[in-house]
């Protein structure tokens, strides 16, 4: 089985612990026995800049972002390389709403290098939405050869079901994400045809791999085939 956790926040996300350096995340993933992880910060990619200088301990890394769409739905964009993620980010950056960040209210937005040195702070809030529709963002993710995953679909304020009432039939997403085994069972009843990921949405090191999710290798490879 492939052991995975494809929704982990780094210290760049204001809501995540400051100890969530990329290095710490990878080491924790290794300790947990994960084969694949994705690091997805809110509306920014830059914490992943130094990831390719790190020892990976056999953990596969997908390069992601958790987008807040214009509708306020959370959407994971997952890519196989930093180059693809960066190119995608540059496409959407003009639609980013830039409101001054107040760290004392919302938390730090720090970027660490491969030595866990703090090298940069993003000074506008990463809470704000990207002023672009969910449909267009899915399309742009695909144009950059990424996968669009509807994040925590049962989340009460930022899941697609709460915000949009139901998953639009026309929406070109690739997978849905749930946060517990109970949600997974529920989702399988409602969306039997959809690819599903059971992720942690970890904001603290101890939350990484909290669902101990795994997947049949055939299913995993079929899903990611066109990305690598």
């Amino acid at each position: 089985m492939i052991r995975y956790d494809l929704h982990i926040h780094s210290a760049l996300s204001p809501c995540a612990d400051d100890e969530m350096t990329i290095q710490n995340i990878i080491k924790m993933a290794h300790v947990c026995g994960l084969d694949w992880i994705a690091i997805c910060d809110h509306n920014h990619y830059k914490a992943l800049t130094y990831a390719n200088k790190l020892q990976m301990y056999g953990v596969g890394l997908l390069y992601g972002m958790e987008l807040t769409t214009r509708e306020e739905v959370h959407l994971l964009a997952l890519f196989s390389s930093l180059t693809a993620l960066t190119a995608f980010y540059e496409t959407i950056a003009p639609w980013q709403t830039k409101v001054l960040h107040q760290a004392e209210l919302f938390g730090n937005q720090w970027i660490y290098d491969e030595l866990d040195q703090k090298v940069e702070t993003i000074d506008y809030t990463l809470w704000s939405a990207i002023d672009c529709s969910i449909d267009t963002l899915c399309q742009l993710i695909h144009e950059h050869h990424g996968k669009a995953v509807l994040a925590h679909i049962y989340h009460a304020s930022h899941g697609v079901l709460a915000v949009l009432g139901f998953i639009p039939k026309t929406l070109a997403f690739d997978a849905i994400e749930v946060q517990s085994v109970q949600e997974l069972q529920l989702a399988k009843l409602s969306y039997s045809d959809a690819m599903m990921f059971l992720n942690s949405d970890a904001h603290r090191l101890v939350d990484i791999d909290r669902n101990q999710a795994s997947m049949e290798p055939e299913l995993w490879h079929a899903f990611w085939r066109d990305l690598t």
Partner: protein
Amino acid sequence: MNIEAFQQQTGCEVYSKGSAREVSGVYISDLLSWVMGHAQEGQAWATVQAHENVIAIAKLKELACIILVEGASMQEEVIRKAQEEEVWVFATLDSAYEVAKKLATSL
């Protein structure tokens, strides 16, 4: 109040028309699951949410109209969908509060 009088009183721009109907009140929310659960038939729904799903929900709940407030933009294809489905869609620069205030005495 009928929908034509409603539109005149609020001064909204008309994006899409439907059949003649009565407006019973105003409902304000942007969270569509909440609207599905709580809005009442005949209400005018003020929101900044412009995703295509608003059209389906307005039909489902038999709402009188959608009022897109604060200049929130709606994509052309969504407006076309509303026209096909004959769902009234209005647009205004006013906030939802201001729209409701204009109607407070007459609804």
